C-alpha cells in the first residue's frame, strides 16, 4: 500500500476513534508531548496503561469475588483505573469507572459486577483500537513515511 494512502487511513481511523468517543483530547495532548527526544512516548505510556489496567482489573475481579467485599479497596482500585484511563484519554473506560464508583458508594455488588464487566469490555475495546492504531503507525514508519500529526478540534 502506498504511504499516502496509509496515512489517510490512519487519520481516518484516529478520527473514528474520537468520533466514537473512545478517545478524547487528552490523547491528543499525549501525542503532542511526543518529540524527537522520546519518539515512542505514546506507545510507552499506553503500554504502561495496559499493564496497569490489567493488574487493576485482576485485583478488582479478585476483590469482588470475595464473600465480604471490601468496597473501600474496590473503590480505590477503580479510582486508580479512572485516573490512568483519563490520563491517556480513554474516555469510555473513564466514564464506565465513574459509574462504577457510584455503585461502590451504594455498595451494590450486583451493579458493581455489571460495571466491572462493562469496564473490562471498554478496556479491551480501547486496547484493541489502540493496538490497531499503533500497528498502522508502525506500518507507515516501516514504509518510510511519517506519522501525520492530528490537528483536531476536539
Amino acid at each position, binding site marked *: 500500500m502506498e504511504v499516502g494512502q496509509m496515512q489517510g487511513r490512519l487519520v481516518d481511523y484516529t478520527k473514528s476513534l474520537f468520533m466514537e468517543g473512545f478517545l478524547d483530547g487528552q490523547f491528543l495532548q499525549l501525542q503532542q508531548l511526543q518529540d524527537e527526544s522520546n519518539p515512542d512516548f505514546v506507545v510507552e*505510556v499506553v503500554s504502561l496503561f495496559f499493564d*496497569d489496567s490489567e493488574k487493576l482489573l485482576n485485583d478488582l475481579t479478585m476483590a469482588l469475588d470475595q464473600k465480604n467485599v471490601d468496597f473501600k479497596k474496590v473503590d480505590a482500585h477503580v*479510582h*486508580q483505573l*479512572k485516573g490512568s484511563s483519563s*490520563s491517556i484519554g480513554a474516555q469510555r473506560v473513564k466514564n464506565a469507572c465513574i459509574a462504577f464508583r457510584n455503585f461502590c458508594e451504594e455498595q451494590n455488588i450486583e451493579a458493581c459486577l455489571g460495571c466491572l464487566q462493562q469496564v473490562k469490555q471498554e478496556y479491551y475495546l480501547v486496547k484493541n483500537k489502540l493496538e490497531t492504531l499503533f500497528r498502522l503507525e508502525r506500518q507507515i514508519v516501516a514504509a518510510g513515511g511519517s506519522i501525520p500529526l492530528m490537528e483536531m*478540534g476536539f
Partner: protein
Amino acid sequence: MKLSRLIVARPNFVFISLALLILLLSSLVISCWYKITRRIEDNVDLNTQNLYSGLLSEIESIANLVHSLNSSATKLTGLLSWSINQSEISFNEIETKVAPILFQAFSTIPYISQISYVGLDGLLFSYYIDGNQTLSIYANSSFSSNSSSVKEGKKNVWYKQQVDNNSGKLYGEAVRSHSLDVVNTSWFQTTLNDSKAYSSVEKGWNSAGDPLFLNSASIHGRGVVSLAFPVKRLTDIYAGIDLYGGSLSLATKDGKMLVDGIPNTKLISVNNSIALQFTKPDGEVVYAQNFTCTPRNDTSATYIMDIGEKKYSVHCSPVEISGVQSVYALALPHEGLVSLVHMNSKLSLILLVVMIVMVIISIFSFVLLMVRTAERKMCLYAKLIKQMEATQQAERKSMNKSLALAGASHDIRASLAGITGLIDLCLTDAAPRSDFEAYLKQMRNCAQDLLGLLNSILDTSKIEAGMMNLEEEEFNLAELLEHLVDLYHPVGTKKGVDVVLDPCDGSVIKFSQVKGDRGKLMQILSNVLSNAVKFTPEGHVSLRAWVQKPDIESAILASGRNGLHKYLSCLFQNINEACSDMEVITAVRQNPNSMEFVFEVDDTGKGIPKEKQQSVFENFVQVKETATGQVGTGLGLGIVQSLVRLMGGEIGIVDKEIGEKGTCFRFNVFLTTMETSPSTSEGEKESQGGPMLGGTQQHSGLTIHSPSPRLTVRTSSPRLPIRSPSTKLEGSQVVLLIQSDERRRISQKFMESLGISVLVVDRWESLPSALKKIKSKLISSHHSSRRLDLSSRSDISSTSSKDMPLSAMDGAEHKLPLNKRRGAPNFILLVIDANAGPFSEFWRVVSEFRRGLHGISCKVVWLDKPTSRSINSISLEKERLDPDDEILLQPFHGSRLYQVIKFLPEFGGTLSQGISANLESSSATKHSYTPRSRTPLHNEEIQEDASSSDERHRKKDFSSATTHTHVRLNSKISPIHQLGQTEMKKDGAESSTKQPLSGQRILIAEDSPLLGKLATVIVRRLGANVEHCKNGEEALKLVCSGLKDQRNDGGHYVLPYDYILMDCEMPIMNGYEATRRIRNEEKRYGVHIPIIALTAHTSGVEASNTLQAGMDAHLCKPLNTEELMEAIENIHHKRM
C-alpha cells in the same frame, strides 16, 4: 393467493383447462341426460304398444260379445219347428202358436230389438221396437183363401199394431202398412236354403230403418225366424272407448259401413283386403290405399299413412261381429306419445345447453375479473416495492451525504486550524504595525469566521444525527449570565446599543449554583444575544432570567409537540427514540431539584414579522427584510431551538405589545439546582482563588438575597424585599442617574424590589434640582433631632455594619432603630453615570450637595465606560473625589449592581468611615479636598479590582471556550471571541517557547507508572528537571535527604525542590501524610516547599482536604500544562 398467482402467471393455461373441464362436465351431463331420455322413450314406446294392442283386443272383445244371437236363433227355430209340425200353417196358427214364443224370446233375449217369423208363403209376424214402443207388424192372409194366399202371395195385407209390453197381446187398432217383400230378399233365401243360421246386416222394420244385425235360421225349410239387434248399440260401445287420439272404422265384408270413424275416408273392403279412400269434404276421392287385413294374432299389420296433416299408423284386421264377417281399421296417431317425449327432450336439451353456456360465461367472466384484479394487485405490489426501494435509496443517500458532510467539515476544520496556526506563527515574525501584520490579522479573522460557520454547520449535522449529548457540570448561572452580557456589552456599545442584564426578582441569584450543560446554555444565550445585538440598530437589548418551579402547565406547554399522541405512538409503535427522548425530558422534570429557568432576550430592533416567526427556527432560513447587509447561514436559531429542546425546554417568540419595537425571544430550560449553600463554597473559592481580590469585590448578590428566608421562586408579589416598602423608605435614599433608559429602569426596579427608596433622574440637567429636593426634605426632618440621630446611627453602624452578615439580619430587628427617624433617609447613595453629562458639572453639583448635609452620610458611585475613561484622564487632575466615592466600570448590572447595593448600610455597607469623612467634610469644607494620599490609592485599587476581575472573567471565559470547543459561539460574535483567543495564544506561545520552568527542580510523587511517566514528560517539556518517586515515603526521604545535604553544605538553605507534585492516593504513604511530614520536617529548616496536589477527584471536599494537609494548590488529573502553570504562578504570586 396461490391460485390467483397461478392465474396471473398463466392465464391461457387456466382458461384452456377450465374450458376442458367445463366441456367434460357438460358432455357427461348431456350423455347422461341422453341415456335417460332414451330409456324414457323406450318405455313410452312400449307403453304405447301395449296401449294399442290393448285397444285392438278391446275392440275385438267387444265384437265378440255380440255374436251369441246366432245360437239363440237356432234354438228358437228348434222350438218353433216342434210347435208347428205341419208344413202349412195359417196365420191363425201363427198368431196363436208362434207369436207367444216369439214374444217370449223377444222379451228375454237382451239387446234384441226385432224378432220375426217369416213363412214361405209370405206370412210374417214380427215384434220390433220403434222408439219406446213395442210394435208388431204382420202380414194377414185370412181375408183370402189359403191357397190363393199361397199362390198369390202378393196379395197379402200388411198390418201394424201396438203390442202390450208385458203380455205380448196385440191391442189397439191395426194399421195397414206397406208390404215388406221379405220372401224375395237374399238373406231369406240364403237362410231358407241353409241349414245353419245366417247372419247379415239388414235394415230394420222400424220407421227409421236403422241397420240391424240380423240372425236368422230356417225352420226345416218352412219358414225363417230372425232375431236382430241394432248396429247402433255396437257403435255406441265403440264410441265409448278412448282411442287416444285414434279413430276406428268398421265395415262388413260385403261393403256395408258400420262405423265410420276415420275422418275423410271411406272404407271399402275387398275380400281379405280393404281399401281406404281418402276423400275431400265434398266427396271427391283423392286417392285410395289398399291394406291387407290379417288376423290380429299375426305380426300386427300396421301401415303408416298420412291422413290429413298427421301420420297415422293403421291397423287392419278382420273381425266377426255377431256372425257377420267384417273388417275394422284402427288409425292411431303415429308416435303420438313418443313424439311428445321427443319434443320435451328437445326442449330440455336446449335449456340444458343454454344453462351450460350461461355457466361457462359466468365462470369465464369471473375468472377474467379475478385475473384483472390480481394483475392490478401485482402491478401495485411492484410499484410499492419500487417506491420503497427508491425511498430507501434516498434515505441512504441522504445519510451518506450527512456523513460525508461531517467528514468533510472535520477535514476542513483541521486544515483551517492549520491555517490559523500558521498565521499565528507568521504574526510572531511580522514586524509590528506593518501592513503585513494587518493583513495577517485580517486573514486570521477570516479564518475564524470560517471556522465559526463550519462549527454551526457541524452542529446542525450533529444534531441531525442525534449525536448531541448534554454534558452535565456544576456552574454558577448568575456568573455565566453576567459574563455573557459583559461580553456583548462592548459590541453593543459600539453600535450604541445598551446590553442589560435584568435580574428580575433575583430568583436566578438564589438558585445560581446549578448543574447542567454550561457550554450549550452559553451557546444558546450567546446565539440569541448576538442576534439581538446584530439586529438592533439603537435602543437596548435586555436579558431577563428567572426561575420557576416546573409545574404541570409549563410542562405541557413545553412539551406541546410531544404531548399525549406521542405517548400513544410510543405505546403503539415502540419508537424507541421518541420514548427515550420523552423519558429524558420527564426525568429532567421529575427531579425534585430540577427547576425551570426562563430566559428572555428582549431587543428594540426591527422585529420579526408575525408570519415569519415560526420559520426563523428552521435551518437556513433568514428573514430577508431584516437581514439586509448581514451575513450568516441562518443556522443559528435552528441550532438554538434544537439545543433548547435537548435541554427539555422550548423556545419561542413572545408577542410584544403593539407599539413596542423589537423582538422578544423566550426559552426555558431545566437545570438541577445544587442544594449546597452557595455562599460558603463561594467564599472559600474567593479566598483561595485570589488574594488580589479584595473583600469589597466579593461577588455576592448571594449574600444579599439569602436574608429573606421567604424568598420564593418567581413571585411577582412584592414580598421579596426584606422589609415592606413603607418602612423601607426610611432607610437609605438612592439617586440613580443613568444614561440608558432600560438600564435605569431595571436597576430601579431591582432596588425597589429590595425595598430601597430610589429616586430616578433621567437627565443630568435635572440632577441639581432633584438633589435640592432631597436636601430640603432632609434638613426639614433632621434639623431638630440631629443629635439623637447621630447617636442612634452610631448604634446602627456598630450593630449592623461591622461583621454582621446580611443573612443574620432580620427585618424586625432592623426596623426599630430606623423607625425612629420618621421617614428621613440617613444614607444617600448617588449612582451617576459619568458619561451622562460633563463630569465637572456633576462634580460641582455633588460637592455642593454634600456641603449641605448635616451628618448624613453620602456616597457617590461613578459609573465609567471601560473604553473611554472620562474620570481619570480629564477630571481627576483638577478635581478630587471624595475618598469614599467609588468608580465602577460599565456595564452596571449583575455583580456590580449588587456591590453598589452592598454599600447601603442595611446591606452591610461600612458606614463608620463614611460618617467620619462626612463629618469632617461637613465641619470643614475645605478639608474634603485634602486627603489626596488616600483617594488615588483607593480609586486605583478599585479600578484595578474591577479591571482585574473583568479580565479574570474574560480569561476564564475564554479558557473555557477553548477547552470546550463545543461551545461555539456563532460567527456573529467572532470578534470578541477572537480577541480572547489571541490573548490565550500569546500566553501559550510564551510559555511553550520560553520553557517557563527551565532550571527548576520538581519532584513528582506518583504511584502509577503511567501517570508518573506522563507527568514527568509534561513537566520536562516545561524545562524543569524532574525527579520521580513512587510513593509518599520515598518523597519524604528525598526531601529530607535534600534538606540535610543543604544543611551540611552550610550557608543558606536552598530548596531541594522548587515544587513537588504529589499524588494524593498512593500506597505505603499517601499524599496527605507525606505532605504533613514534609511540612514538619521543613519547620526545622524554616523553608516551605510548594506542594501541588494531584487528584482524580473533582469534588470540593477533596480540594479542601488537600489544603488542610498543607498543600499549596490542587490540580485535577489528568495533568494539564496550562493548569499547572496557572497553579505555579499563583503560588509564586502568593509568596511574593
